[in-house]
């Protein structure tokens, strides 16, 4: 176990200054997520254009450095992707956080993969995995227009 691996500079930076921590104006999809164990919550907003491409993504909420950094990186890289691509990325990310050694999706650039791999350190902290995954599950829920709140399960 290595704390340095978990709290890399990029995570601390995103955690401190999260990108897209706001409410997208004119959003057309959104969902709420909640981690009942610790009370963390997130609200993800998406604005899709006519071609179903994510024009803007944002989030509101509070949480630990891991969860804020994860939501920050997610909302950044999901812009410009369509729903199908976005969901494939989510699957890839969740697979990586749980067991896969690397990211496979062809919809992610090398730089995006590097950023996401910074979160791979949580693998060694099973209690913290849900911190990293809450916003991702919530984004899927927003795409699927589910009304009930997402509850994290590892």
């Amino acid at each position, binding site marked *: 176990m290595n*704390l340095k691996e*978990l*709290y890399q500079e990029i995570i601390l930076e995103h955690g401190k200054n999260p990108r897209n921590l706001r409410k997208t104006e004119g959003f057309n999809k959104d969902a709420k997520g909640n981690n009942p164990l*610790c*009370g963390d919550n997130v609200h993800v907003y998406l604005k899709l254009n006519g071609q179903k491409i994510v024009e803007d993504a944002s989030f509101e909420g509070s949480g*630990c*450095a*891991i969860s804020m950094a994860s939501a920050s990186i997610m909302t950044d890289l999901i812009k410009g992707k369509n729903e199908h691509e976005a969901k494939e990325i989510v699957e890839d990310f969740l697979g990586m956080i749980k067991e896969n050694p690397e990211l496979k999706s062809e919809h992610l650039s090398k730089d995006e993969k590097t950023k996401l791999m910074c979160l791979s350190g949580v693998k060694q902290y099973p209690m*913290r995995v849900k911190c990293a995954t809450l916003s991702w599950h919530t984004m899927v829920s927003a795409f699927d227009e589910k009304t009930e709140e997402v509850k994290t399960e590892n």
Partner: protein
Amino acid sequence: MNIDQIKKEFPIFDEKIQNNDLVYLDSANSSQKPKVVVDRINEFYTKQFSNVGRSVHYLAVAATNLYENTRTSVQKYINAKDKNEIVFTKGATEALNLVANTLGQSYLKEGDEVLITELEHHSNYVPWHFLRKSKNIKINFAEINEEGEITLEEIEKKITPKTRLISITHLSNVTGAILPVKEITQLAHSKGIIVVVDGCQGAPHLKLDMQELDCDFYAISCHKMYGPTGLGILYGKKKWLEELPPYQGGGGMINEVKKDRISYGELPNKYEAGTMATAQVIAFDQSIKFLESIGIENVMKHEADLVEYGQELLQRNNSVKLIGNPKNKGGVLSFTIEGVHPHDIATILDEDGVAIRAGHHCCQILHDKLNIPASARASVGIYNTKEDLDQLNQSINNCKKIFNL
């Protein structure tokens, strides 16, 4: 009192936790277990096991006697008037649910008001919420002051002519405030109001005297009292336990069962349906003996010293903000660090073998009031030392370093 000697009685401190010595500061969540308690469970299962209160064979009679011995020990320890005022439950949560459920069945009526406080653990709120849903009772909240205390005056202010019950914590698991339970009870009784006390944090750390406190019900969590998990105790005044209906139906709690009628058993069997946590009850006798061997006054003195020391230490540490500053405070130090989420604090402290809790500690109402989503909490037990708190402080500094504070 020699803390090093006491600490040696807890086998877990011989273990290395991720190559570190364990600095256990999570006793408000659950305490560690002395060897006598662990051994007693083993001995009972190995040499003496039988179910209790049913069969007449030798082992059954012996086990029943052991089980009832614990009841007597608890009665003496908390100075209850009658042995039958001690009911074993699966935990303090079940004890509080038992009270709310049975009072809801036969005592509280639509429109009645229950007064609780903003300090309450979810287990002393949700059971009353059930009655709000099913019986349309109203729940009022006594509010904390700036120090994180609930004063007698605040309780008095919140009592209305419709208040029929007050349910309060003895010691807050977040701010550490010790409530003036005796005075609140006097006031409540003068107005014909019942008092229920959530004693989860009170029982392990304070001197208990039910006849002096005079509350109507008192719920205890045994695993926070150096005892086994899966066991709680409900103290209830005999007149209430006799008057209220049973909580669960099943074997052991009945007197006579016919196709057209059932009569229930006498106390305490009436509230102990099914096979109980037998080994845990029998082992809990050792927890009581362990506490008695140290003396609760010594426990209180030691823990008060620790809290004072820890409080000063953390107050001097920049960017650490302590939650609550009650005059009468138990062994709980809840805090936040500006710029670091409590979960991150807990993970970083864990790396040094420092076990604390992070989150809302089952007190969302309180955290909402304080306008914080979560807090970090270090809580002490009889085995903690000032060195543990020094290590806590040092690990907090490490945490600040990682976050460039």
